[in-house]
């Protein structure tokens, strides 16, 4: 009899936790889906969709340029709290004959970084901070770096800044948007970006940086080593 009672209690507890857990999961998903909502109006015709990881992505235009704003949950570095990276990409063809990616504080597991794709390693300019990995591709890579270096050096000193990449197809800046809660990660390796949200002014700052880099590159007809 006591065993039956215990089994019943256990079943009731499991049922309670399943119902409660599903409600919690729904609330967590809803909070995650709305991370970009505050910044939707920064882009003209801004459209939010949910990606395969359950995080939102925003597409739209800013001053006639096409932008994509995405979120990358990063849990792949051993002994580091989960990170939520903000990816702001301007999609347009640029008059450059090369590509450059500048990654700050590389860990070796930065799978999202474009430094991963190219083999040519470039020396950081003198005013760049420590722990900077710069990789390029194509004959114009060094020249692109020289042109943007004075401006990008300031960006790199922002502790939230992660990467800037320039390719003939556009410009991308990655920022840290949120860091996972320590307790949830330590106990269950769960990823909780509590109260994560993208404020409009923050998105505008990143877009302004992208446009400034674009301006630096467009000031010459062809950014090339030739």
């Amino acid at each position, binding site marked *: 009899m006591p065993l039956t009672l215990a089994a019943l209690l256990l079943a009731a507890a499991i049922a309670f936790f399943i119902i409660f857990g599903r409600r919690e999961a729904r609330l967590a998903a809803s909070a995650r889906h709305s991370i970009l909502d505050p910044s939707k109006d920064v882009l003209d015709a801004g459209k939010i969709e949910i990606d*395969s990881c359950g995080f939102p992505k925003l597409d739209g235009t800013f001053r006639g340029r096409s932008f994509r704003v995405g979120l990358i949950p990063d849990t792949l570095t*051993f002994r580091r709290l989960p990170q939520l990276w903000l990816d702001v990409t301007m999609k347009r063809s640029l008059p450059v004959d090369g590509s450059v990616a500048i990654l700050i504080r590389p860990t070796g597991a930065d*799978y999202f970084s474009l430094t991963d794709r190219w083999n040519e390693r470039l020396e950081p300019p003198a005013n760049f901070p420590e722990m900077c990995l710069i990789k390029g591709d194509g004959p114009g890579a060094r020249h692109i770096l020289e042109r943007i270096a004075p401006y990008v050096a300031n960006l790199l000193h922002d502790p939230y800044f992660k990467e800037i990449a320039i390719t003939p197809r556009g410009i991308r800046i990655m920022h840290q948007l949120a*860091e996972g809660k320590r307790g949830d990660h*330590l106990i269950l390796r769960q990823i909780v970006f509590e109260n994560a949200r993208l404020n409009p002014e923050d998105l505008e700052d990143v877009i302004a940086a992208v446009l400034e880099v674009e301006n630096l590159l467009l000031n010459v007809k062809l950014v090339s080593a030739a």
Partner: protein
Amino acid sequence: MNQTTAVHGEKISLLRVLGPAHVWALGVGIVLVGEYMGWNFAVGKGGAIAALIACWAAGLLYTCVAMIDSEVTSTVAAAGGQYAQSKHIIGPLMAFNVGLYLVFAYTMLEAANAITLGYLVQTVGQMAGFADAQDKPFIVLSIMFLAWLNYRGVYATLTVNLVLTAIAFIAVVILFVAVKPWSTELLNHKEILNGLPYGWIGVLASLHFGLWYYLGIEGTCQAAEEVRSPARSLPLGTMAGIMTLLIAATMTWYLCSGLMPWEYLGQATTPLFDAARLTSSTPLMVLLFVGTMFSTLASANGCINDASRAWFSMGRDRYLPTWFGAVHPKNRTPFRSIVFLVPVALTFAYFAPLDQVITFSILSGLLGYTYMSVQVIFFRQMWPLDTIKRGYVHPFHPIPALVLLTICSATYFAVFLGYGTQLIAMMVFFIVASLWFHFHRYKYVRRGDQFTMNWPRPQGY
């Protein structure tokens, strides 16, 4: 930007960074499973008193680990723990070995968790009248299910899971109170305790499983990405965890050693659940069943996560075929590493006894700790205090390193006393793996990419 942890560039006190949930997490979350199983094999090696001495000696070992790890971690800004540290301080061959230590320590712990879970389900099933209940299907099921969860990458979070894991800790406290430690109604230490049946050599032999109480607690020293926080540099968080575990371990030891004779306790698979059974209280049995289930599941989940990430990093660094460094395009998980390690965990969980699986896990951890003691001596010689900035400087160097090395050496001897074959097998494995790396794999490693810190040239080079 809206941050969940506002640590950037601020001077932050430990108390501001660590809320109650964090302190709980630091103290018991990861290694709580050590209270539920495994520690009691130390009793079998030298008696209950020896196990308690071993528990406290292991606490000293982990205090040294916390101090040393905090200093080096505060300097190597790139996250990655000992693996990243070894790349910078010694080189690729050492990093390859440290990566393997981590993978094996976690994979064997995962297998040990699955064995315990399977055994518990079998025991409870038989108590409930299912005489034919078997542990093997549950072992396989738990590993496969958790691997699938990790493969999918569960971004949803459930507070309820934290509650259930908290129950695992509360269950120990409730059981401790329920056995009325102030009376001799249930506990019978006077009759059951038998001193040191094998003398001091038994105490030494117990040291082996004494490490189990804390194995992996240095993992609580997590990097807050990007700008290093003062809290991360401080060893106090890990120290608080060690102290919490010392208290929990002593409570566990006290109630188990007062309920069960050492001959039984020393070979039990689920000592806390068995203690609850001896109280004849059904609610306590249910509570400890739930506690054991969730502590093993939570631990196994963390192990799959950490082992796969260490294996993934080794693939990314070309220490292993780069095929392992792939990220799932949709789930953004290191799916190949997760899948590859499943049969390894299954093989050990299915075919090896619990004490041997635990021994492999402890040995892998022990190799890592031994390396830490050597590493910090190299580190201080190559980059003295005034050459690079440190977030934390551990005191009394080189005493903690020497104490750590001494306790590690004693523990190797302890392992040799009971598990000499396993010790030799593991050493042979690491030697063969190192030879493979040196003569075959090393040519694929991009040496320029290994050193990501802008440190000055080391002294003497």
